[in-house]
């Protein structure tokens, strides 16, 4: 089981929650997480597949083959909009 934080507009795609708990097998990678999310939340999954939303693991941008463990801090990051 991994916990996935959601920011910005992504919360509107998953009924307003800011954290998802996703069951994943041992040895899972980011791409496996994306597959599960795509199945459960197609709109969110599509943004991930199109790389409009990126995945961070322990506050670094992750690749699709990045391995995940339960204690990882995982977040889904929509396009940034800081500044003015």
């Amino acid at each position, binding site marked *: 089981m991994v916990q996935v*934080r959601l*920011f*910005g*507009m992504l919360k*509107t795609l998953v009924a307003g929650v800011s954290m998802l708990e996703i069951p994943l097998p041992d040895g899972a990678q980011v791409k496996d997480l994306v597959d599960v999310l795509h199945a459960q939340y197609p709109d969110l999954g599509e943004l991930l597949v199109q790389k409009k939303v990126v995945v*961070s693991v322990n*506050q670094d941008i992750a690749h699709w083959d990045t391995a995940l463990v339960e204690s990882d801090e995982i*977040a889904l*990051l*929509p*396009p*940034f*909009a*800081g*500044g*003015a």
Partner: protein
Amino acid sequence: MAVETEASMLVRVQQENFSLDQELERVRARSTRIGGIALFLGTARDHSKGHDVSSMTFEHYEGMAQKKLKEIRERALQDFDIIEALVLHRYGPIEIGENIVLIIVGAEHRADAFKACQWCIDELKKITPIWKMEYTPQGDVWVEEHP
């Protein structure tokens, strides 16, 4: 009042407003070699992409946002001929006309200060996990992209 000079004060993500005079002094006090200071201040405007905006809220990824601003300051110090750089961004609710973001760069000469200041704000927009929700007459809108 003594100006705090720790590096942590030069990179901040904070809810409260900031004082331009105080932040300018913080950079100026870092070195008497500074001969030019460039500043970018981003403020909340009441119009965006053809619609009125009544106020806004910034959300940030606590920890990662600070890490990215620190990285921007360190890369600016390394890649440009400058003496000091300060990078601040606010989060939470912000009213029209209020301060949002501040970059201050001190260098020996103006050209380096201008160049580094522009690079810092451009890079901030690219790599810092901060998001903006605008409140408009048509509803609340998460801003997706910035020029």
